[in-house]
């Protein structure tokens, strides 16, 4: 290999690393700009309160069954695992403490976030993506209506409001699931279990749980709407947008959870 060949190899190596890095930064920039535009436009009229209520209903209310089931099953499984694991060093009595901390700090927000992302990010991407490819969004602009205000902002704010409410429900049901399993299968004293739960739980835990929920809610709607708006290429494009929305919402939820956990509890 000559000198020129070697230089070319090095250059193409840098190019191979650089290209995806640059495009990743460009994507992050576009998503941030999209979020900022939505928030800025949402502050000035016209407002769409009915669209917001519609989205609250579809994100919050209709996610309740799946969130409740997830939380109940996880709370129970958690209690069983801690009991069995704790037996090895005689720490069975920590079940109520670990269930409450595990649910409120981590599993409640994360599992709710993931379940709602699966339901909602995909639905938003599919709906907005279909509107994009059938020119409904262009039509909206020609009808003097701002898609950011009409379509995106209600979804974003509804999601930020709904997620903390859902996480509250998930936390309570998860703790109660752990309680039921502990009392009826593992033989815990009901009053003692509840007392220990109440003693361990601090208000900071609850605040952090709700902060996480709101952040996840933001990412769920943001990725659903962003993927939807950028849809191109017919039915296949809508399919891609739906998948992208869910995958990116999952990644962002788990990444932001790690960052928030380390920042708050590390």
């Amino acid at each position, binding site marked *: 290999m000559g000198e020129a060949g070697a230089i070319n190899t090095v250059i193409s190596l840098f190019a191979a690393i650089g290209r995806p890095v640059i495009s990743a930064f460009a994507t992050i920039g576009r998503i941030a700009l999209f979020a900022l535009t939505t928030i800025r436009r949402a502050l000035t009229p*016209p407002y*769409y309160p*009915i669209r917001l209520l519609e989205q609250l209903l579809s994100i919050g209310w209709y996610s309740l069954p799946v969130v409740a089931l997830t939380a109940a099953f996880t709370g129970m499984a958690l209690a069983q695992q801690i009991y069995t694991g704790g037996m090895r060093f005689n720490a069975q009595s920590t079940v109520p403490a670990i269930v409450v901390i595990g649910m409120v700090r981590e599993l409640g927000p994360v599992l709710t976030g993931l379940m709602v992302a699966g339901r909602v990010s995909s639905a938003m991407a599919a709906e907005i993506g279909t*509107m994009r490819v*059938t*020119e*409904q969004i*262009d*039509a*909206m*602009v*020609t*009808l*003097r*209506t*701002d898609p950011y205000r*009409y379509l995106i902002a209600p979804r974003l704010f509804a999601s930020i409001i709904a997620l903390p409410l859902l996480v509250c429900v998930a936390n309570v049901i998860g703790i109660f699931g752990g309680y039921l399993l502990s009392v009826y299968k593992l033989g815990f004293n009901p009053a003692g279990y509840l007392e220990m739960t109440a003693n361990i739980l601090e208000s900071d835990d609850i605040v952090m749980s709700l902060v996480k929920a709101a952040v996840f809610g933001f990412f769920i709607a943001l990725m659903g709407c962003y993927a939807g708006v950028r849809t191109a290429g017919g039915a296949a494009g809508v399919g891609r947008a739906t998948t992208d929305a869910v995958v990116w919402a999952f990644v962002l939820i788990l990444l932001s959870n790690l960052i928030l956990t380390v920042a708050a509890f590390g």
Partner: protein
Amino acid sequence: MADIPKIELRGVSKSFGAKAVLRDVSFAVAPGEAFTIIGGSGSGKSVTLKCILGLMEADAGKIFVDGEEITAMKPAERDRVRAKFGMLFQGGALFDSLSVWRNVTFALTQGRLKGGGELRKIAEENLERVGLGAEVLDLRPSELSGGMQKRVALARAIAHRPEIVFFDEPTTGLDPIRADIINKLIVELVRDLGITAVAITHDMQSVEKISDRVAMLYDGAIVWTGPTADLRHSGNSHVDQFVEGRSDGPAE
């Protein structure tokens, strides 16, 4: 004042990446004129309309509406100019989550759900203009046939009484009889409402029925402009090939 064109493009260019979609496109449309842009698929017809509407930004060149340069405008001013436009989209682009009458009156409330009775009346009037009765008011767009959807979309495009209406392939996907009904409606609307019309189409029957003047786009550039009557003896090989629908000629 009468000399100011309703719409004027001067040297408009637009590329997607390395692909030039519009190259130095210039034309002017007089008030009340029905102007048609013809050209094959991918010749840049839709992009031209989208640039005028501000749905896309032109890379170079200037666009004027009523003598005002919209390519240099701030978003708020652009909104004001955009109110002069209505557009009939190719697939209708009706909002499938809303009833027909909410679709028709969408621009009047900017999508807010208010003003029940009065707005229904406005919707009814506009639907009547396109030959539809009050029975469709509460239907969803998905419950209508393709031809009816197009008519509802037409009613929606004119409900806020725009001065300029764009028609994107108004007859595509319709049978010849329904296509003719839509052509007649367009002619009536232009005449009765004093609208300036710009249509893009590759349907030659439609071109000859609705337009006063025609421009031909080929590969992003305007290759011919003239009155509709001259279309069949334009002396331009691109136009001849298109008008006669031949596969052999300057365009492959």
